[in-house]
C-alpha cells in the first residue's frame, strides 16, 4: 500500500491545527508554515500525478480495512489531475493573500485555508460516498469561515445565505445517501457500481430517486440553474482572493457528477440511462446563458466575475452532459482552464476593488492602472474564450465534441452567443474601469472613496506603504496568467492527458477491480 496517497489530506490536516494552536500569534510564522505546507502539497501532488499518469489506479485502505467494509482513497488520473490543480491554485492564492495582506484582516485565515484544502483534496481522492459527504462538510465549514473573513454587514448577510443554502444541500445529500444505502446496502463507490448493475430494472424506483437526489446535490455545488442562487451573492461578497479559491469548489460538484455518473450510474446502465445527460444538458445551457447575461448586467466587479464563473460552469457541464469520451476529455481540459481563468479574474478584481472600491464605474485613475488593465483584458479574453488563450481551445474542443449530438445547434448556438455576450459584458466593464477614468480630471474630488488618495506621481509609493510587498499580488496574478499560457502552449500534452483520463473514466472496470480486487460479473 502506497502511504503517499493519503499525504495530501494528512498534511493540511496537521498543519492547520498546528497553526491554530502553536503559531497563532505570530503572523510571519503562520505565513511561513502555511506557505511551506502549500509548497509541499504541490510537490506531493506532482508525484501523485506522475504516478497516476501511468494509468494504474491506486487504492489506499484506511486502517487496512479491505474495500467494501472500510473507507478507501482512490487515485486515478482524474483525482490526480484535480488534486494537482487544487494545489497549484492554492499556492498562487496563498502568495496573493500574503502579498495583499488579506490574511491580516481577520483571525485564523491560514488555518481555515489549510482545512479548506484538506476538504477539497479529500473529496477528490475518496472512493466512498459517505466519506465524500464528510469531506464536503470539511471543505464547507472551512469555507464558511473564509467567506466571512474580515467581517462586514454585507459579508455576514451573504454568509448566512451561503451557509443555509449549503446546509440544505448537505441534508439532501444525506437523504440521497440513505436512499442509496437502503437499496444497495453499501456506500463504497466501486461496490455501489457492482450492486446497482445487479438490481433488476423493475426494482429500481428508489434507486432512481436516489440518483436524482444525488444529481441535485452535486448541481447545487456546481451552481447549475436553478440551484445557482447561492453563488453570485456569496462569491461577490466573500474576500475576492477567497472567491478565487472557491473557483475550485464548484469544480468539486462537477467532479462528483463526473465520478458518480460514469462509475455508479454509468451511461450504459439501463435503469438510469441518460438520466444525468437528459436533465443536465438543458440546465447547463441555461446556466451558461444566465451567467453571460449576469456578466452584462453586473454593476459590481465581484458579481461580474462570479457570473463569469457561472458561465464557465455552464460550458463545463454542457460538455459533461454529453457523456462521451471526447466530450469528457474536452470538459477536463476546460476544467483546468476555467479554474485558472476564474481565479485569475477574481484576483484582478481584487486588485481593482482594493484601489477604487467594488463598483464598476468610471472613477479617477487608479494606481498601476495600465498594468491592471492589461491583466483584466487578458483575463477577460481567457474567460470569454477568445483566441489566443486556452479558453478558445477548450471551447473549440467542447464544440467539436458536440458535433454528433441531437441538440448540436442548441449547444453551438448557446456557447457562441454566450461567449459574445460575455465579451460585451467584459468590454463594458473594462472600458468603464480603465478608459472612462482617463476622462475624469485628476483634481481631487469632494467625495473620496475608502482608499487614501494620492497624486498619480506617487502611485508606486501609495501601494508600497499600504501593503509591504506590493509586488507579490502581481507575481500571483502573473503566475496564474502563465498557467493559462502554458495550458495553451502545451495544449497537446494536456488534452492527451485529458483523453486518457476520459478513457479511464469510461472503463470503470479498472477502478472497480482496483478497489474490490476482483473482476466484475
Amino acid at each position: 500500500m502506497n502511504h503517499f496517497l493519503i499525504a495530501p489530506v494528512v498534511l493540511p490536516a496537521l498543519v492547520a491545527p498546528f497553526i491554530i494552536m502553536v503559531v497563532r500569534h505570530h503572523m510571519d510564522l503562520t505565513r511561513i508554515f502555511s506557505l511551506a505546507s502549500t509548497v509541499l502539497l504541490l510537490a506531493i501532488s506532482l508525484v501523485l500525478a506522475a504516478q497516476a499518469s501511468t494509468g494504474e489506479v491506486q487504492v489506499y485502505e484506511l486502517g487496512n480495512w479491505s474495500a467494501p467494509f472500510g473507507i478507501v482513497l482512490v487515485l486515478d488520473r482524474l483525482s490526480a489531475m484535480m488534486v494537482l490543480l487544487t494545489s497549484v491554485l492554492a499556492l498562487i492564492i496563498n502568495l496573493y493573500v500574503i502579498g495583499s495582506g488579506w490574511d491580516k484582516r481577520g483571525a485564523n485565515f491560514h488555518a481555515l485555508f489549510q482545512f479548506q484544502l484538506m476538504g477539497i483534496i479529500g473529496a477528490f481522492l475518496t472512493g466512498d460516498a459517505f466519506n465524500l459527504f464528510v469531506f464536503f462538510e470539511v471543505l464547507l465549514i472551512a469555507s464558511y469561515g473564509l467567506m466571512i473573513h474580515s467581517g462586514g454587514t454585507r459579508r455576514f448577510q451573504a454568509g448566512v445565505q451561503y451557509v443555509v443554502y449549503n446546509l440544505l444541500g448537505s441534508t439532501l445529500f444525506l437523504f440521497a445517501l440513505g436512499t442509496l444505502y437502503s437499496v444497495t446496502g453499501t456506500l463504497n463507490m466501486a461496490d455501489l457500481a457492482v450492486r446497482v448493475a445487479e438490481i433488476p430494472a423493475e426494482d429500481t424506483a428508489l434507486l432512481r430517486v436516489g440518483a436524482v437526489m444525488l444529481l441535485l446535490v452535486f448541481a447545487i455545488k456546481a451552481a447549475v440553474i436553478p440551484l445557482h442562487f447561492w453563488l453570485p451573492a456569496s462569491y461577490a461578497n466573500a474576500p475576492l482572493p477567497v472567491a478565487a479559491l472557491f473557483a475550485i469548489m464548484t469544480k468539486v460538484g462537477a467532479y462528483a457528477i463526473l465520478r458518480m455518473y460514469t462509475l455508479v450510474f454509468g451511461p450504459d446502465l439501463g435503469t438510469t440511462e441518460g438520466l444525468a445527460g437528459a436533465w443536465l444538458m438543458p440546465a447547463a445551457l441555461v446556466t451558461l446563458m444566465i451567467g453571460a447575461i449576469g456578466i452584462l448586467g453586473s454593476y459590481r466587479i465581484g458579481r461580474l466575475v462570479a457570473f463569469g464563473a457561472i458561465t464557465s460552469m455552464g460550458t463545463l457541464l454542457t460538455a459533461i452532459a454529453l457523456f462521451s469520451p471526447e466530450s469528457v476529455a474536452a470538459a477536463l481540459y476546460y476544467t483546468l482552464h476555467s479554474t485558472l481563468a476564474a481565479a485569475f479574474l477574481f484576483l484582478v478584481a481584487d486588485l481593482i476593488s482594493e484601489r477604487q472600491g467594488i463598483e464598476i464605474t468610471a472613477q479617477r485613475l487608479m494606481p498601476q492602472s495600465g498594468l491592471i488593465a492589461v491583466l483584466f483584458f487578458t483575463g477577460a479574453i481567457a474567460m470569454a474564450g477568445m483566441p489566443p488563450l486556452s479558453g478558445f481551445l477548450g471551447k473549440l474542443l467542447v464544440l467539436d465534441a458536440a458535433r454528433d449530438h441531437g441538440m448540436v445547434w442548441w449547444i453551438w448556438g448557446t456557447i457562441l452567443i454566450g461567449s459574445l455576450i460575455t465579451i460585451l459584458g467584459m468590454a463594458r466593464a473594462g472600458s468603464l474601469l480603465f478608459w472612462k477614468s482617463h476622462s475624469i480630471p485628476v483634481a481631487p474630488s469632494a467625495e473620496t472613496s475608502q482608499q487614501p488618495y494620492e497624486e498619480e506621481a506617487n502611485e508606486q509609493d501609495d501601494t508600497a506603504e499600504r501593503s509591504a510587498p506590493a509586488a507579490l499580488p502581481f507575481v500571483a496574478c502573473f503566475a496564474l496568467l502563465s498557467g493559462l499560457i502554458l495550458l495553451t502552449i502545451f495544449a497537446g500534452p494536456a488534452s492527451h492527458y485529458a483523453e486518457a483520463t476520459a478513457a479511464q473514466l469510461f472503463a470503470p472496470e479498472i477502478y472497480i477491480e482496483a478497489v474490490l480486487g476482483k473482476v466484475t460479473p
Partner: protein
Amino acid sequence: MSMTFLNIEFLVASAVGLLTAAGIYLILRRRTFPVILGLSLLTYGVNIFLFASGRLMVNAPPILNKYAEVPYTDPLPQALVLTAIVISFGMTAVVVMIALAAYLSARDDKIDMPHHPEDEGEDA
C-alpha cells in the same frame, strides 16, 4: 411485526415526513431564526431517515452473535447517523453565530439582502 395501525414503520415514516414538512415550511420564512429552526428540524428528519435506511428492527442489538442465530440490526446506519448528528450540530452552531453577527451588524434578521444598500464601507 404486529398488524396494528401504530406499528414502528408507520411511526418512523410519519416522524420523517412531519419533520421534513415542518422544516421545509420554516426554511421558506423570511427571517433567520425560523430558517435555522427549519434547518434543525430537517436534520432531525434526515437523521431518523438515515437510521431507518438499514431497516427497522425491534429488540435487536447491532452486534453479530457467533454463538447463536439471533436477529441483529444493521450497525452501519447507526454510525452514519452519529456522524451526521455531529456534523449537523456543528453546522447549526456555525450558522447561529454567523446569523447573530449579521443581525448585530445590520440590526435586521431578514434573510434577504437589500438590493441597493446605502452602507458600502465594509469592503476596505
